[in-house]
């Protein structure tokens, strides 16, 4: 009699994430979505002020080669109490740089649960879903959810002329994918 071959345990797929805080609230973002982490101070020289009507969460823009990166204040985006903002995540494949208070830690999630359908407003754009880590539930942000195409159109219209936007000279921390 032949015994059935033992089942190989299925490897659990995990995704590296960065836990970060905005105004005391914990969020997660996929590490693969973060191209660069910089201190807000290091940007003060390269950022240009911008004012788009009705879009208070963006106050500054950065010139990157031939494109502009809009610095989104995380607290204003999520409707949280104002916070100083110490770090900036430059989000890959977007025109968003996210101003946050600090990084909690890097970890891995093994399960991302879709946002329950009861949540039916802007948060469906904000979050990819929720994950449970150490008996805590953390929303996992969607990098594309910080600025809609309408927001980008408003911001582009409010951009100062190209020659005003100077080249940045400050260094950031490039994250490996």
């Amino acid at each position, binding site marked *: 009699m032949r015994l059935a071959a033992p089942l190989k345990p299925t490897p659990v797929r995990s995704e590296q994430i960065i836990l970060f805080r905005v105004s005391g609230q914990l969020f997660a973002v996929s590490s693969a979505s973060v191209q660069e982490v910089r201190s807000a101070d290091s940007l003060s020289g390269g950022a240009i002020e911008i004012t788009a009507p009705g879009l208070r969460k963006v106050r500054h823009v950065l010139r990157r080669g031939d494109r502009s990166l809009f610095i989104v204040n995380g607290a204003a985006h999520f409707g949280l109490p104002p916070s100083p903002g110490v770090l900036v995540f430059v989000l890959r494949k977007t025109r968003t740089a996210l101003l946050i208070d600090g990084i909690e830690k890097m970890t891995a999630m093994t399960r991302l649960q879709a946002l*329950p359908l009861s949540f039916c407003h802007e948060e469906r754009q904000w979050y990819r879903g*929720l994950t449970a880590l150490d008996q805590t539930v953390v929303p996992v942000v969607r990098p594309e959810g910080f600025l809609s195409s309408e927001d980008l159109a408003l911001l582009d219209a409010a951009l100062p002329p190209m020659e005003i936007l100077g080249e940045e000279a400050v260094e950031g921390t490039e994250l490996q994918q």
Partner: protein
Amino acid sequence: MTVLAELELQTFVLLRLGERRFAVSSGQIVELVAPSRVFRFPHHTPKIEGVILRRGRIVPVCDVAEPLIGKRLTSRRLYLIATRHYGAQTEWVALPVTGECELINAELMAAGASDEPHVGGWISHAGDVIEVLNLDALTPGPDEIVREAALQETLEAQP
């Protein structure tokens, strides 16, 4: 009681919100659990307080007291976890309740045309007439946005 009448009885869970009692069809009830930590994060959906972790699932906590009794609950004893339909999909929602729940058999009377959408029918129990809740209309979901948009259009159309 005749056999016919017995067959028409359905099972309901009676829940208490403040001083009032409401009923939910027992087929929709998953379990009754003690309050646990509510995890809160930013969102814009009214009535949703946050989420709880239950049996490995992340369950939204939906406070339905305000539309039903006109005020938010200040004290709560339990969460009634029920199923909520979103078209073909079904998800759990946790409803905070202020008292013990009771399982009863009663005959369902259909809701009238003038009843609110969240009224799924009526039952008579211990001398009271009790609303049977239609959780699909009472708790938020994607159709709420459609209703809000329609309401907004109506308001804008008014002179």
